[in-house]
């Protein structure tokens, strides 16, 4: 059995669910939710069935249909099926499915739950489209669809002005990156004459200099798309604000899937990137990782801490791609999807249990009231911090190893330092929010979430524990470095020992971070750090003033340009040009109408006059 049609079904099931919900079942909350959950869970089962039947490298790795054909331009709509896309398919439908189920509990009180699930399914469809696309054009279309559906989801509670603003900010910031992405696609198309990934790869292989002098520009322009979607510096500002959306959305979009799209895309088109472009990419990633980790240290909102930690981890992945390590990047993307989704859902469970409280300083002592959330959250924290043998340890170690192997000691140092910071801010969150005594009434009366929410937590926490050594690297290696040896589970478990320096430094950083966090936050009622760090802490707390900086420069400039354009449009185009034409047309209509007096004699006269004029013109000369 090769189930050739299964991927098409997997792709279009969520769209069908979204359509049915939007058109027919908006009035029925539960049915809508079940449709949406059913679509993605079926998608997951079908993905597993497909992989069981075909392995990770199907014989038919590409199916496509001509979508439109204009002259020499032919646009295909096709699916690419290889280890990379199939693993992403598993992540999106698997982790996404868990988040869908969790949402059923989390959103249960919301009266627009049906609308929520319609958006969720639309998002899933768009994300699957990116993953399965076999060409740039199709990927770009789904790329934009992801932007739209994330806009809808972030702004789901549109009655809150902050949610509306965050949705706009996310969309517009993404569009900035997408503009570069589009230019990059056009440049590649113009130079290589194709949009199909397979054909592009073949062209680059046949002639590595095919892009000529534009190679760096093309690579960096395409990278712009990833900068926007994966929220890399300088377009990182949208991700933290996007936490205004419902927490499952944060888990789905801003941890497991959408922000991963940029990294996925870079791995998909890795062959287009030359050494210079890769260099820039690795440093952008490293800088983002450091910047975001520093900001995370001084945040107090539980979701914002996780958001900046996401940024920081994405920085790791981008850095790894830049260091020519696609396997470590995708490996970290996968394990990160497990534990970050787990952490977000855990945070959602806390917020749910504390009646929408998000400030960690108003929590405390949650261990007693929310045992499942507590235990799963600590697993997530350990995995993110990179404590062996949790999943994050292995993937982070492979990135550190990659940096060392490339002899980029600066980035290696940054990565180790960020690893320490990560442990520090995560345990700060953990100590303050979960341990100690309840600080508020809300925290005293916290309650555990229902099984529909804790179930996904347990499943994800299992993955966060074992994700590092169940063969994920083997699958990615089969795509990127086919000649790498296949390791057994035991070998994977001990793999970091082969490269002892990064492992020891990584564990050392974790130990330092943990120790610092315990000393400072082990038992404290307020944050001691601002007093110790002074101005630096304030800068961290205020996200290094990037929003203010952009506000003062780009946005002000843009507002000025917009005012000028508005003036031109309103007064010159609309008033002078269009107004003149419109008024003239209207006036001539009203004037001509006067001819139609209704008087029969006049009519007969005009008729005869018309005949006379025609006769004169035709015969008079």
């Amino acid at each position, binding site marked *: 059995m090769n189930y050739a049609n299964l991927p098409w079904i997997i792709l279009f099931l969520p769209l069908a669910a979204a359509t049915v919900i939007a058109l027919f079942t908006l009035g029925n909350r539960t049915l809508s939710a079940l449709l949406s959950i059913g679509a993605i869970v079926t998608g997951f089962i079908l993905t597993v069935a497909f992989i069981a039947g075909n392995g990770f490298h199907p014989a038919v790795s590409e199916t496509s249909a001509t979508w439109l054909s204009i002259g020499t331009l032919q646009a295909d709509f096709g699916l690419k099926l290889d280890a990379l896309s199939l693993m992403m398919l598993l992540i999106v439908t698997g982790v996404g499915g868990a988040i869908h189920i969790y949402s059923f509990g989390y959103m249960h009180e919301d009266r627009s739950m049906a609308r929520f699930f319609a958006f969720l399914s639309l998002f899933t469809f768009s994300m699957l489209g990116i993953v399965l696309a076999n060409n740039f054009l199709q990927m770009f279309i789904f790329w934009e669809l992801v932007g739209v559906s994330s806009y809808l989801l972030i702004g789901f509670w549109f009655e809150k002005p902050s949610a509306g603003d965050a949705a706009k900010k996310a969309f517009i910031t993404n569009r900035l990156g997408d503009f570069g992405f589009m230019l990059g696609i056009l440049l590649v198309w113009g130079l290589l004459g194709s949009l199909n990934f397979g054909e592009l790869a073949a062209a680059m292989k046949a002639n590595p200099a095919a892009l000529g002098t534009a190679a760096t520009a093309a690579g960096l322009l395409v990278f712009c798309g990833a900068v926007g979607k994966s929220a890399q510096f300088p377009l990182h500002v949208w991700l933290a604000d996007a936490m205004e959306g419902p927490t499952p959305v944060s888990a789905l979009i801003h941890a497991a899937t959408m922000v991963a799209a940029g990294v996925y895309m870079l791995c998909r088109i890795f062959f287009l990137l030359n050494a210079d472009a890769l260099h820039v990419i690795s440093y952008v990633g490293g800088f983002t990782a450091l910047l975001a980790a520093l900001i995370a240290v001084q945040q107090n909102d539980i979701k914002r801490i996780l958001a900046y930690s996401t940024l920081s981890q994405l920085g790791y992945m981008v850095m790894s791609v830049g260091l020519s390590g696609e396997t470590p990047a995708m490996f970290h993307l996968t394990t990160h999807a497990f534990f970050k989704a787990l952490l977000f859902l855990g945070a959602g469970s806390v917020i749910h249990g504390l009646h929408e409280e998000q400030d960690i300083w108003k929590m405390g002592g949650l261990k007693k009231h929310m045992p499942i959330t507590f235990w799963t959250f600590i697993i997530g924290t350990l995995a993110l911090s990179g404590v062996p043998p949790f999943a994050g340890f292995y993937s982070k170690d492979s990135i550190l190893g990659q940096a060392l192997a490339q002899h980029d000691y600066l980035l290696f140092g940054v990565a180790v330092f960020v690893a320490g910071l990560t442990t520090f801010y995560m345990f700060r969150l953990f100590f303050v929010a979960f341990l100690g005594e309840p600080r508020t009434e809300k925290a005293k009366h916290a309650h555990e979430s229902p099984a529909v929410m804790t179930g996904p937590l347990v499943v994800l926490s299992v993955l966060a524990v074992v994700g590092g050594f169940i063969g994920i690297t083997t699958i990615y290696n089969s795509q990127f470095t086919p000649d790498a040896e296949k390791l057994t589970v035991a070998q994977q478990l001990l793999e970091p020992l082969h490269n002892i320096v990064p492992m020891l430094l990584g564990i050392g950083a974790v130990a330092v971070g943990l120790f610092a966090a315990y000393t400072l936050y082990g038992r404290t009622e307020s944050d001691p750090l601002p007093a110790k760090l002074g101005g630096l802490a304030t800068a961290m707390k205020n996200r290094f003033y990037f929003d203010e900086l952009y506000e003062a420069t780009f946005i002000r400039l843009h507002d000025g340009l917009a005012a000028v354009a508005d003036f031109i449009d309103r007064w010159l185009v609309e008033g002078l040009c269009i107004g003149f034409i419109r008024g003239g047309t209207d006036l001539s209509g009203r004037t001509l109408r006067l*001819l139609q007096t209704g008087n029969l004699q006049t009519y007969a006269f005009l*008729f005869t006059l018309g005949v006379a004029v025609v006769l004169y013109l035709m015969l008079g000369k």
Partner: protein
Amino acid sequence: MNASLMSLEISVLALGLLLMLADLFMPVERRPFLGFAAIAALTALLIASFSGYGSCSISGTAFNGMFVNDALSLFFKRFFIIAAILVLFVAVQFADRIAVGIGEYYSLIVFALAGMLFAASANNFAMLFVAIELITVTFYVLVSFQRGRIASLEAGVKYLILGALSSSFMVYGIALIWGTTGKLNFNELAAVANQYTGEKIFLLGVLLVVVGLGFKIAAFPFQIWAPDVYQGAPTPTTAFLAIGSKAAGFVLLLRVLFVALPVVAAHWVNLLIVMSAITILYGNLCAIPQRNLKRLMGYSSIAHAGYLLLGVAAIAGNVHDATAGGAAILYYLAGYLFTVIASFTVITLVVRKSDTEDISVLAGLYQRSPLLAATMTVAMVSLAGIPPLAGFFGKFLLLKSVVALGAVNQGYYCLVFTALAGVVISLYYYFGVVRAIYFSKDVTDLSPIAVSGSAKICIWLSLAGILWLGIFPNTVLNLAAEAAKVLSS
């Protein structure tokens, strides 16, 4: 001599007479039934024409070549029968507003149809004149049929007097042609016309015939009657004027210009371009300030005559191959038929309860009857020429046929530009109607409008026609192209 070729026309005339007779014997309350009887009979004739049994699908000539059956006449005869059937549907809806003689009203529609069928087959100036007069005289009565309404009578008188004026020009023109050439038959005239292209008396005659036909199609500068008559006439009459009478004018114009006198027509390209351009602008500009729905449709029909003249101008530019322009005209008329019927059916039903025909009666229509609102919207959108409806594809074909000739004569480019400007202007008032349906602020009357079964049939047929022609244009386009070949010389 082959009178059997005319059995369709004879059947239609017999149907008209039967309806009149039946009217005498039928009790008043049963008379609406007559309309359905006429519809059924015409439907049978239409089916016969498609199944190959109708006389109209047998090619040939009769009465010494006065009467011809060819692909062009076949296309138009089917067109006219469909138009009459749909107009009869509208008339059935309108029956309550005609005080006496509804049976006569139906039979007059059928008589006018007979005139149009003869016009489709006319191949001789005498035949042309008789056919046109049969149509026009019938319409004099149809226009003034609401004897109780001053507006209807006024429209009737205006149509009568201006119609008589144009007929007199035309008959004078025919006399001059006969006097100079001694020929009345189109084919015979075509054979000798070459010798007369320099003779002003002959050309004067042809121009006067064109004046008469220009009056029928309401082209500038002979359009002056249209708005008043459209506004005053009973609504089914207006609908029939807008499609039947206009199409009859066009089939005759095409035959005179391109079967009988292609050598003359080829010299008159500029006249046709100018007429087309001014007609388009005049109709669209004057429609802007209109508030009366039927008057608006009157101006709109002038504009559409202008669009159709694009096709005529295109054929004149290359008389040897009339396929592109001719097919575009025929296709456009087919789309226009369904659109006009759809809009006039809605107008008939909406205006029934109120004494005004102002656009404001449409306010809140989408709440009073979603079906009617949707139908009117589709009709307006199609008239404005927006894809995927019939009106778009028709305009596209017409413009395409004209653009193709731009390299030969720069005037064609100016014409295309004018036509596009006209389309843009027309968007304003067509969407003004749509706006009145959906976005009117002060809606006073929200009582639902009852739509009878027969009206629904008519509406669904029109909607199906508009969509089918727009989305699957090939069937009709092939028939039209086949018919247009007759016009190539």
